[in-house]
């Protein structure tokens, strides 16, 4: 059998979450921000998989499937919002969308 330290898997999840957080913070393009949120959700799923692998239970993968479902719904609504913002403001700059009234 193989041996993988639980801590190293969790460290990988932490590194990926940090990279996604940096991407959300430093980017001004809305599509990049959405992609970075996807990276963060994916790393949260990785943490669940690592936990499920440590105790050899199926619950980690079940939680990963729920995160996957949530990410799919989130990305579809987010992309519709991006299309609407590009249609109204003619730009993808997130700073341009600072008014409630389109």
């Amino acid at each position: 059998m193989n041996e993988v330290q639980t801590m190293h898997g969790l460290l990988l999840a932490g590194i990926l979450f940090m990279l996604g957080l940096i991407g959300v913070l430093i980017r001004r393009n809305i599509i990049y921000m959405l992609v970075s949120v996807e990276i963060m959700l994916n790393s949260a799923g990785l943490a669940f998989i690592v936990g499920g692998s440590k105790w050899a239970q199926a619950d980690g993968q079940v939680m990963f499937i729920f995160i996957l479902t949530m990410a799919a719904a989130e990305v579809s609504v987010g992309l519709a919002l991006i299309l609407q913002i590009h249609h109204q403001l003619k730009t993808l700059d997130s700073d341009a969308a600072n008014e409630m009234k389109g």
Partner: protein
Amino acid sequence: MQLTFYISAFVAIISTIMVITRFNIIHSLLYLVVSFLALATVFFILGAPFAAALEIIIYAGAIVVLIIFVIMMLNLKGEAIEQEKQWLTPAVWVGPAILSFILFAELVYVLVTGSNNGSPVVQQVDSKAVGKALYGQYILAVELSGMLLMAGIVGAYHLGRQKKKVTHRFLEQVEE
């Protein structure tokens, strides 16, 4: 097997760094696919083959293709890359990067000093066990996620709807 884990973890980290630093969005989406594939390998090594298959099919297949479709609809030109280069200056990214590194260092400290002696032997959790848990004790959450997907479909349709054109596109005045 352990070496495979470290190699694919390295690939995942490098490709994720490339995702958040590229100027051309198609390039960064291709790096995102590589990152997802590397993470699927990690899932497989961790004894979760069903999650690895789902990672490839849904993340690398469906979600990235959806984003690429939207980018094709937006019809971005070369000046978008120039604008990205203007937006991503060192003055912009240094501060958030340092703060995120501090948070990550705290996380590493908690992980290293905590009582964490992982079981060394990885056991496979096959899709049969996942399906039993999913449709057994988690059946209510499955129905709730079905409702969430329905709300996502309705919301995406409502938000993405364009106004109906009254006149023909050759007859309407050009306004820019």
